């Protein structure tokens, strides 16, 4: 408050250019005199408040940077105070650094080639299907037959060549046969597929295979036949042997029987005879059994042989036939032998039967007699020959009577028998005849059969021979036909080949031509495209080159402009190096740099050379220093304001001093736009100049100061010179900078 009063008082005093109204001051002072204690309190309080406010402001500024910035902006000299208290303001945080994210390239996919593992097995022709593998020796009928049919069908499969084939009857028959077989065997896929011509090698192979098979089969068949033949021969021999033995046994037995019947021998020998007879009978039976078994075995074996033969016959292989025939003959012989033996045995048996019948009759009679005797004499044993001492006379008499009766009976029977003998003999003869007839018939039959067999065999043999002959003939014919066929086929093939060749040539030529034309076209196209591309590339290259050149030129210009600008900036910066009372650095270097950077630019060069020498050598003072100096000069100028250019005495100096002491003017006053004569008062001028300086207008200040005259002028002369120098330098630098900026802007490439 007090200060405010003072300030107001001073202002009014300066305004009026009058003496200070000391009374007001005194009044103020008077007022304050009585209230010194309260005033001091007020002063203290005020001071405390102010300091508190300042401290609080400082603390808050420390905490809140925005507030500090605001305070520094708004309150002058606060930045100095805050800087003193807190240190410089915190800088802005730097620009955030961008992280570079590295994109990982996804690994390129590797394509795998799919392997084609599918193997196509060549479709086996119909040939393969029909050619079975050769089987083992032990073959079944079906297999063999199937194989045979296959082979025959394969042989008979004629390639489909449109050539007339002379087929003989046999061949036709064969073909028919094989066709039948073909149809019979469902395995053969020929009907479904078209006939394919097989190559010669294949046919040969097939034939070889077939031959091989035939051989195998024949070998197997022969082996089997031999086996069976051997076995049957063995069996037959065995049978024959057995039957011989049986025959012998029978004959022996019969003889023995006869002997036993007829021969009157001693009783002891009779029993021996009977024993022998029984033994012989036993032998005979055993022999007969054996013979029968052997016969059956032989028959079995013969049957098997026959079946094997039939099988083999069924194979219908030519090479087998002689074997078959031989086997059949053997069989026939064996059968014949067996039959003979059987017949012999039978006859012997029949004889033996008769004899046995006789013996039986005799035995019967004997038994009957014995029965009679026994019935008569029960206590007598059967074997009356041994009972010589044991019989009584009655018994004996009875016995003799019986015997006599028996003899009579027997005589009667004998007479009857003799009578009937003829009839019986006739009957027997008849029977015998019949039997003989039967036997004869049998024999005849067997003989007939044998003969038939023989004839058949002969026929078979002849047939086989004929077949062979025919086979050979057919083979020759076939060979001839095959030869003819091959010739024809060759001819036809040649013709076809020619035709096809011609056709193929034509097609090839046409395709080639087409390909040629297409190729030429493509090449031409490619050439054209290439030329076009080359042209465009060349043009682009040219364009690029031009662009680059222009760019280079522009860049050069820009660079120069930039350099100029940089040097001018350096120059202007070097202007700022002026400190309080120290001039700037000599501008020579910077000016030299400017001159260097604008060698080919006359305007800039002229400007650069327009810099005053003094500034180059010594540097210029800054405006601030000039301002400061002016303030000090001002007082001096005021003091010598009254001294003009005329001869002034010291008294004038005294007067001007007095004037300066007594005269008060505004420290700063805004100069009017036009100076009038009363403005030329040095004090006014000085205040104008001060104002201008304060407002940074050095030029106007210099102009105003230039209006000073006399000693004041002399005093401020060098200041004026300095100011002029500074102004000049600044002007030149501004011009240069403006020019550099303009040039720089001009050369800057618009984005």
């Amino acid at each position, binding site marked *: 408050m007090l200060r405010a009063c003072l300030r107001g008082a001073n202002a009014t005093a300066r305004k009026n250019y009058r003496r200070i109204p000391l009374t007001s001051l005194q009044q103020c002072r008077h007022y304050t005199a009585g209230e010194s204690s309260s005033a001091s309190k007020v002063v203290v309080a005020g001071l405390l408040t102010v300091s508190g406010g300042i401290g609080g402001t400082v603390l808050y500024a420390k905490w809140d940077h925005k507030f500090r910035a605001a305070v520094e902006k708004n309150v002058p000299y606060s930045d100095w105070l805050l800087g003193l208290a807190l240190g410089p303001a915190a800088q802005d945080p730097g620009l955030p650094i961008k992280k570079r994210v590295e994109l990982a390239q996804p690994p390129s996919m590797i394509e795998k080639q799919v392997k084609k593992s599918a193997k196509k097995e060549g479709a086996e022709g119909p040939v393969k299907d029909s050619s079975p593998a050769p089987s083992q020796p032990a073959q079944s009928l079906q297999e063999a037959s199937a194989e045979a049919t296959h082979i025959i069908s394969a042989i008979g499969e004629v390639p489909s060549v449109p050539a007339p084939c002379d087929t003989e009857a046999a061949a036709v028959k064969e073909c028919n046969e094989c066709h039948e077989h073909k149809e019979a065997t469902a395995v053969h896929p020929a009907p479904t597929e078209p006939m394919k011509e097989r190559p010669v090698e294949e046919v040969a192979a097939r034939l070889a295979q077939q031959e091989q098979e035939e051989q195998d089969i024949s070998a197997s068949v022969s082996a089997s036949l031999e086996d069976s033949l051997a076995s049957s021969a063995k069996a037959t021999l065995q049978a024959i042997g057995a039957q011989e033995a049986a025959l012998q046994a029978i004959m022996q037995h019969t003889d023995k029987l006869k002997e036993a019947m007829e021969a009157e021998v001693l009783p002891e020998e009779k029993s021996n005879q009977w024993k022998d007879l029984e033994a012989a009978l036993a032998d005979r039976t055993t022999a007969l059994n054996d013979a029968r078994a052997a016969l059956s075995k032989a028959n079995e074996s013969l049957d098997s042989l026959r079946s094997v033969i039939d099988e083999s016959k069924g194979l219908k292989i030519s090479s087998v036939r002689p074997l078959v025939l031989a086997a059949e003959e053997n069989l026939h012989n064996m059968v014949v032998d067996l039959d003979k033996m059987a017949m012999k045995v039978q006859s012997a048996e029949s004889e033996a039967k008769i004899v046995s019948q006789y013996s039986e009759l005799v035995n019967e009679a004997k038994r009957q007699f014995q029965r009679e005797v026994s019935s008569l004499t029960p206590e007598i044993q059967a074997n009356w020959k041994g009972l010589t001492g044991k019989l009584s006379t009655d018994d004996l008499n009875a016995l003799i009577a019986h015997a006599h009766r028996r003899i009579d009976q027997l005589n009667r029977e004998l007479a009857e028998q003799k009578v009937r003998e003829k009839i019986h003999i006739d009957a027997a003869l008849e029977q015998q005849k019949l039997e003989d007839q039967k036997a004869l018939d049998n024999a005849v039959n067997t003989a007939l059969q044998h003969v038939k067999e023989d004839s058949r065999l002969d026929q078979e043999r002849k047939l086989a021979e004929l077949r062979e002959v025919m086979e050979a003939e057919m083979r020759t014919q076939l060979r001839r036909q095959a030869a003819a066929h091959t010739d024809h086929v060759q001819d036809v093939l040649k013709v076809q080949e020619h035709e096809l060749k011609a056709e193929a040539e034509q097609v090839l030529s046409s395709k080639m031509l087409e390909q040629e034309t297409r190729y030429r076209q493509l090449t031409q196209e490619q050439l054209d495209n290439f030329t076009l591309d080359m042209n465009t590339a060349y043009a682009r290259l040219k364009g690029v080159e031009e662009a680059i050149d222009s760019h280079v030129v522009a860049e050069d210009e820009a660079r120069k402009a930039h350099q100029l600008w940089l040097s001018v900036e350096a120059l202007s910066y070097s202007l700022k190096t002026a400190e309080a009372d120290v001039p700037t650095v000599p501008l020579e270097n910077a000016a030299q740099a400017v001159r260097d950077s604008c060698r080919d630019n006359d305007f800039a060069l002229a400007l650069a050379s327009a810099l005053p020498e003094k500034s180059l050598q010594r540097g210029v003072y800054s405006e601030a220093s000039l301002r400061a100096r002016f303030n000090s000069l001002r007082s001096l100028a005021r003091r010598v304001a009254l001294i003009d250019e005329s*001869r*002034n005495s010291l008294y004038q100096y005294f007067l001007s001093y007095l004037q300066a002491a007594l005269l008060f003017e505004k420290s700063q006053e805004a100069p009017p736009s036009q100076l009038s004569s009363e403005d030329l008062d040095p004090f006014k001028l000085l205040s104008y100049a001060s104002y201008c300086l304060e407002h940074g207008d050095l030029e106007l200040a210099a102009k105003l100061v230039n209006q000073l005259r006399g*000693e004041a002028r002399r005093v*401020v002369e060098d200041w004026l010179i300095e100011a002029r120098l500074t102004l000049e330098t600044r002007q030149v630098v501004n011009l240069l900078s403006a020019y550099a900026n303009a040039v720089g802007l001009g050369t800057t490439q618009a984005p």
Partner: protein
Amino acid sequence: MSHVTSCFSREIFLTAENMADEHARKWDRCLADTAVKTVTGLGVGIVFSLIVFKRRAWPLSFGSGLGLGMGYSNCQHDFRSPYLIHGRMVKDQ
């Protein structure tokens, strides 16, 4: 001396210090000179007063006045010197 100094100051470096200080220096010189002259005059007066004029007061004041006046005059001349125009007689031919 002042002439020399002023020439010196003008020719080589017309700096503020020199120009502003010149005025001050002038004053310094002037005052010093005046003081010296006055004292010298006073001294001469004293001497004259003592020797010639039988211890009268008037040579003292005379001498000091003389000295002062000389100094004043010198001072004045010094201060005037920039404005003195030195003419030259151009003889008519």
